[in-house]
Each structure stands twice: as C-alpha cells, then as structure tokens.
C-alpha cells in the first residue's frame, strides 16, 4: 500500500507514453502517410504518436532529473480492490452468455464485494441474490433488454 514515489511515477508514466507512441508510430506507415494536401490514413496518427514520444521523453527526463522525495498524500496501489472489482467484471463477461443474467450479476457482485475485507460471505451471498433479482427486474423486465435470468443449464 505504500505510495509510489513521485519521480518513479513520472519515469513509469513517461516510459508508458513512449511505448504506446512507438506502437502507434510504427503501425502508422502501413496505413499510407500520403502528402500534406492528400493525407493518407497514417498521416494523423504518425504526427500524433511522434509528438507523444517527445512528450513522453520530457516526462521521463523530468522524473529522472527530480530529486527523490516522498509524496505521502498520494494514494498507493490497492491490490485487493483492483483484483476484486476487475475479477467481478471478468466473471460477468464469462457467465453472461452461457448462464444468463442472474448468475452473471450474482457472481460479479460477490467477487467485486470481496474487495472490502469487511464483507463477510453471508453478506455477499445476500447482496448477490438481491442484486441479481433487482437487475433482472430493472433491465430484463423493465427496460426489456434481451437478457433471460437463466440460460443454458435449465
């Protein structure tokens, strides 16, 4: 949970911007650059990613040049909520088509809920069942989305 130091943040951030810039820059030539008066599909992304690489470099150098100092106000990486929330979304995506809305919502709610260590299994089971029914009532019954509660197994 310790906050990432500020100069490290800039080095990582600048490096990522450079990497993304290069990926777009490299591909842009394949789409045809063209001329100023008749620009090809690759022209605009080529210019943008070129500028992005320069800006990324500036951020990176700024980070490297800065003296190390702690920045306690900044929030640190919270692994548990990240895994739980993203895991909940993944469960929804995996379960929706084969098993229907009910199981997908219940699983998403239960897994996402694990992000807060205070949530107990019983709480989560009740919450999951409640949300599955409420979401089904709102979206399938109310808004008439084509999402059956159960699918496949029944």
């Amino acid at each position, binding site marked *: 949970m310790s906050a*990432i130091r500020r100069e490290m943040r800039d080095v990582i951030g600048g490096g990522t911007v450079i990497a993304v810039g290069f990926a777009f820059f490299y591909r842009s030539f394949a*789409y045809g650059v063209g001329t*100023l008066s008749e620009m090809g599909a690759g022209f605009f992304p080529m210019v943008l990613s070129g500028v992005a690489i320069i800006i990324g470099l500036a951020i990176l150098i700024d980070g490297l040049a800065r003296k190390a100092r702690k920045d306690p106000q900044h929030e640190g990486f919270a692994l548990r*909520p990240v895994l739980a929330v993203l895991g909940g979304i*993944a469960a*929804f995506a995996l379960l929706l088509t084969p098993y229907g809305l009910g199981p997908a919502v219940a699983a998403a709610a239960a897994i996402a*809920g694990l992000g807060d260590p205070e949530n107990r299994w019983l709480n989560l089971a009740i919450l999951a069942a409640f*949300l599955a029914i409420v979401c089904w009532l709102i979206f399938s019954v109310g808004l008439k989305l*084509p999402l059956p509660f159960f699918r496949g197994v029944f």
Partner: protein
Amino acid sequence: MDAVLTGIATAFSVQNLAFCFLGVTLGTFIGVLPGLGGLAAVSLLLPISFYLEPTTALIMLAGVYYGGEYGGSTASILLKLPGDASNAITCLDGHEMTRQGRAGVALFTAAIGSFIGGSTAIVLLMVLTPVLVKVALSFGPAEYFAAMTFGLLAAATIAQGAPLKGMAMVLMGLLLGTIGTDVNSGVERYTFGFLELLDGFSVVIIGMGMFGIAEVISSVMTARDRAYKGRISISSMLPTREDVRRAALPIARGTGIGALFGVLPGTGPTISAFMAYVIEKRISRTPERFGRGAIEGVAAPESANNAAAQASFIPTLALGIPGSASMAIMLGAMMIHGITPGPRMMIDHQEVFWGLVISFWIGNVMLLVLNIPLINVWVRVLQVPYRFLYPAIVCVVCIGVFSINNSVFEVWLVLMFGLAGYLMRLLGFEPAPLMIGFILGPMVEENLRRAMRLAGGDFLAILERPITAAILGMTALLFLWIVYGIVRSKTRMVDRLDDLAQG
C-alpha cells in the same frame, strides 16, 4: 420567437417532463455516491437513453449531468467525500459546518447557490449561444481545426495536474480516437483483426472504465467507515439573517466566475470552484474563518461549479467543441443520437436547442425541490455502507456496457479501461484530457485534412485566414506561457491553488 415557443412546448410535454425528472433524480442519486460524478453518471445512463427519441434523450442526459453536480455537494458536506472533483473544495468548510451541527444550513446554501449559479448561466446560454452561432457560420475547416487545437491544448494544461502529463493524455485520447475505420480512405487502423473495433471504441466504454470503474476501485478503501448518522430537519436548514448576509455576495461572485470559466475551453466546474473559493478567501476581511465552517466557503464554489456546468453547454452547442470531459461525453451522446452539435444544428434544429434550454430551467427547479424538502432521501442513500453500494455499481456498469451492442467484448474492454484508468490515477495522469482528445480526435483529423486539401498542402496558406491565424496565435501564446511556467517554477497551477486554498 417561434422556435422559443416550440421549445417551451417541447420541454413541457408530459414525456419530456417525466424524463427530465428521471434524469435529475438519477443524476443526483449517482452524484451523491462517493467517487461518482456527473461524467460517470452520464456514461452510466447513456445506454438507457438509446431507447428514447433524441430530444428526450438529451433532456434526460443533461439532467443527469447537472443533477450530478447538485448531488456531489451532499456527500462533500456530510461525509467529506466529494462526489466529484468539482465538489472537493466544498469539503473544507462544508464538512466543518456539519461537525458544528450546521449541516442543514450548508446543504441549503449549496442548493440555493447551485440554483442561482445554474439559472444565471442558463440566461447566458440563451443570449450568447445565438451570437456565437453567427460567428461560427463563417468557420471553414481551417477555423474548426484551429479552434479545436486551442481547446485541446487548454484542456490538457489549464484544467488539472501537470501540463506535460495533460498533453500526453490528450495525445493518448487522440490516438485512441484513430482506432477503427478511417472515414476518408476506408483503411482499418489499429483494429488488429477485431471486427468489434471497426467502428472504434464507444465513448461509453472509455467513460465508464476510466471514470466509473477506476473511481470505484480507489473509493473502496477511502470511502470505508464513513456514514452520516442522523437526519436533516427542514427547520435546521433555514439560514440565519447573518448567514444570508455572508452568503449573498459570494454566491453572486461564484456565479460570475463559474459562468466565465464555464464558457472558456478547458476550464470546467472544478477549476471554477477552486477559483471561487480562493477569491473569497483572498477578499474576505476574516480569512481565518475559512476552513473552520465559513458559509462563504460553501456558497461560492457551489454556485461556481453549477454556473460552469450550465455555461459549458455554450461552446458545446454553438461550435460543437466541448470544453470539458463531461461536455465531451455529452457531445458523444448527441452524436450517437444523430445530432451533430454546431451552428448547423442551431439553425436546422432550433427546437432541439430551445427545448433543451427550457428543460434546464425545469430541471433546476426540480433539483431545488429534490435537494431541500427531499434532502433526507439522499441522506439515507449515504447511510448505506459503501461496501454494499460498490458491487451494485459494478453490476450496473457491466449490464450498461453490454447493452450498447449486446456484446461481451465491450465488457472486457471496460475491464481494460478500468485498470488503465486506475493505474493512470496512481501515476498522476488525469483521465479528463484523454476523454476530450478521444471525442475531438476524429473531428480534428477530418477538418485538418479538408483544410489542407483546400489550401493545396500549404500550411502557411491557412494562416492567411484571419480567424484561423488569431486562434492559432492564441494557441501558440498559450503553449509558450505553459513552457515558460514549467521552466520557471516547475510547480503546477493546481498545486498552487491547493496551497492557497489550504494555507
């Protein structure tokens, strides 16, 4: 005049009244939730609006947006948890008033200030938009390119955070906007064989991922163990004569600041609220009261952010150029409904504009009722522990994203954008400039290509157009000013505002 009357008739139709009410209510509800502001609210409810006709959909979504601005102040005042960045400054004195047992007065002041700020900006919207439309009619592709470039630079650098990082985020947004089929040549760019990417990313996915999921992840820990116990009685909301005297001028000044900054590109509700607070503290004869429950510290920023929220519709509707990330998503919403904002819309579909403007009035009156007599409904919402609320938010985001195209692929995308948005936050990169870049990207490219084709590939030729030259000159000046600022002090503008606000 006919168009105004048609607008009144449109806004007062039973269906539009109902959806305006639904919009402001849901907007307030989502705005009250910690971490979720107007922008997340609009992207969350955008899929639902697909089933409505365009004018009704816009009335509802706009209601969601400014309703979110009202709701955000409630959590700031009661829990010191800003619903949105634009309410952050209200926490300082608002929450202090709550601790002194004056939560009711703070909430009342916020609602009244919001109403006055919002209504004044609507008048400005009615007067200024037609004027701006006349100017915009003489715009060709070169002028649009110049104006959008200025907007992008302003969004990247003035609003929040370090200017270099803001620029990097705008560029990332512009690059994300190039993904999909190029409209000019039909070439598929950066799709990597995914058929789902042929039309590019949906604005809803980026909005929900970077503003919804990312905010939820970081709120799981920060919003724990905070619940307001107790109720707000109507009698406790009534301000004393002294309160009224103290709050009157800050509301007026906050409104002016918000209306001004709302129209300018890149400076939305957040910067307006900060500015309003700092100015009140500066000119106050008793600055030591700020941070200790001064009513001015609630009145000024809350008037300013709502004035800015309404005023930011001016450039969006008249030019089709959004000044803030929230307006970028509103613009995206309009385009999904087949309405392209800009001077043509203002002439061909006047009834849409006036219908929307009149609905703003109606919505603001509804919000006054929702936030004063019905305040306890929102207090109850805040009494539900966040650990039960956020799994529900995650589920609604998933269903909402899926329902755009009935595609599970987009749910996976929202997962990726959520993670990216969270990591960006940790690294100190703001998602708002990315959003503006993403929406404006295809328009910038289109106008640049057309302008260069008309000019025969001679970039200097477009500088012979006076408006283009003036706007590009302003862009260059802004750029130089930013570079000068970085080199000279290496401190961020918001950092300085933060210091001023706190120290």
